[in-house]
């Protein structure tokens, strides 16, 4: 059974602005937040996942985005070193929780920014890591050493897609959905040469965070607003589960950002 980590949105809100999506003038509707999060939780449970909940902490509104807790592979957990001080306080809570649940916690050097699964996704035999906005390339090297795996480092160039999980989503058939313009030319080439059967996402659908999806075998849990992508995935044999995510998009997150895979891979 697939195990996932989520964090209830008790303290979620737009309390600072650290990406182009956030505006304190455009706050989240608390009731709608709860409804949308519950919708995701129920969907994941209904698809046969065991969902763990990490206790939310006051004054850490983005703790709800557990994909940025860190990266879990096998029984190893590499916690995030958040770039923004607003989120740095989340790391010890996530690390402590993972340790209590049997993970060996391996911290990266303090000067290497790393934002967990949000910037590190396995596709095929390689771990694809985004860099520049949030994560440093130097952290990729350390992760590669810790996990002894091939890391493909790709530069993110569009600030709207500041984590790799906002513009790249590996599928279980070895392919991936992606928004190519979020990567520089070299990143695009690197992804094309390592990932077969890529599905390009149109900009207007990518802007709905369509790539920010949780893939569970042949089910894809994704935000609403991507009819063309759903059609493409349908043709490839995937069942799409579109969910309303408007309140989390206000903070620059959606289904995948709200979910961490425990672990993402058993081995590299």
């Amino acid at each position, binding site marked *: 059974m697939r195990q996932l980590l989520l964090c209830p949105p008790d303290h979620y809100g737009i309390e600072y602005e650290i990406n182009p999506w956030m505006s304190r003038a455009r706050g989240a509707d608390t009731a709608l937040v709860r409804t949308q999060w519950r919708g995701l939780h129920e969907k994941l449970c209904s698809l046969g996942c065991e969902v763990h909940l990490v206790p939310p902490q006051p004054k850490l509104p983005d703790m709800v985005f557990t994909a940025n807790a860190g990266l879990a592979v096998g029984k190893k957990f590499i916690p995030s070193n958040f770039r923004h001080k607003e989120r740095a306080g989340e790391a010890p809570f996530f690390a402590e929780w993972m340790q209590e649940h049997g993970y060996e916690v391996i911290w990266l050097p303090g000067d290497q920014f790393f934002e967990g699964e949000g910037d590190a996704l396995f596709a095929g035999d390689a771990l694809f890591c985004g860099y520049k906005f949030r994560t440093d*390339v*130097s952290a990729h090297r350390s992760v*590669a050493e810790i996990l002894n795996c*091939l890391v*493909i480092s*790709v530069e993110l160039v569009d600030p709207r897609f500041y984590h790799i999980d906002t513009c790249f989503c590996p599928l279980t058939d070895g392919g991936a959905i992606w928004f190519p313009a979020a990567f520089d030319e*070299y990143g695009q*080439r*690197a992804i094309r040469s390592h990932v077969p059967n890529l599905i390009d996402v149109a900009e207007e659908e990518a802007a709905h965070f369509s790539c920010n999806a949780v893939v569970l075998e042949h089910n894809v849990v994704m935000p609403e607003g991507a009819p063309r992508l759903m059609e493409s995935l349908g043709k490839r044999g995937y069942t799409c589960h579109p969910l309303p995510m408007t309140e989390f998009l206000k903070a620059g997150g959606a289904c995948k950002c709200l979910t961490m895979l425990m672990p993402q891979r058993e081995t*590299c």
Partner: protein
Amino acid sequence: MPSETIQLRGHIIDSLILPKVLDEIISHGATFKIGEVNIGEQRKDQSFARIEVMAPDANTLDALVLRLRQHGAEVEEKKNVQLATAPADGVFPQDFYITTNQRTFARIDDTEIEVHPTLMDSAIVVDRASKTATAKRFREVKKGMETVVGHQGIRVEPLQRLASHSDLFEFLSSPASVEKPKSVVIREMAQEIKRAKGGNGRILVVGGPAIVHTGAGEHFEKLIAGGFVQRLFAGNALAAHDLENALFGTSLGVNLEEGGLARQGTQNYLRAINAVCGAGGIRPAVASGLVKRGIFYQCVKHGVDFVLAGSIRDDGPLPDVITDVLEAQKAMRAKLDGVTMAVMMGTMLHSIAVANLLPATVKMLCIDINPAVVAKLTERGNFQTVGLVTDMEPFLRELTSCVVGDR
């Protein structure tokens, strides 16, 4: 040219980080030199590259390095030079760094300082208080002077070929050969001399007595009178034969106008030296009207600085000749400021000695009838050196007619 050495490590091949970094360097107008590359053997193995990045100016380099850091480039820490004190006057510490004729920089207390002058076969003496690094030859070093040892902290800036400027030095800096198309080469040499005069440069001539023996003196005089010579380095012989010619019309007794040995001509040489010694030297001899023509007459009239260095076999020597070789070398070095071109004609030892004093930035033309001399000078590995094997008189006649006659 400012530079930094960066290191890249990780999966830089699969991620295309290495080609991206190299492309970024070029697109910033900078250049690179790959020092070391280790490619991982297995897919999971990380790779490593060490790259020296050279930018046209410090600002460009800073902006570029900032960008490269985003791609994971780590800037290698620059190390300061290692110093040791000279154990005695005239003795460098063991393992002292030996300079080349290229621009050299020494990193002292985290600041890069240019070594002055650019002088090969010297050591670098550092004065931390005044933040200076000086190239010094053996006899200039005093006990206790701080001297650079080893190679750490030293950066040598090789002379850059100009891609946009094609000239004689681009095409003809090949091994000396008698089979070169002489008149073409001489015409090009003339163009170089005119270019040097047209700029802010100064032209140095190192000349041997063959200039006078071969009857080429009159051509050389025209070059001096035309303002194409600012410095003249020679030995006692050039001056003595030129003065003999000025006073008696002979060179080692041979009548230069008519040929043939003049009556008691061989004595003219010594009588000329004697006369100039009597006058107190070349300048007084010109001033008094004793010497009314010739190479040195033109030098005095046109304010050309000359240095005459002596040797064991010199007759006289003339009062102007510096007989202490170290003093002579010092006098020559003092007159190298601003020299951009050196023309070396018909003298082996003086040419080699002077070539060893010149920075690589000075263009050299070497002309001698002996191919071994030309080869020796052009072999110094500098692409700014062009040699021509030919007799002095036809060479100078052709050169002068191109330069002065504006052919």
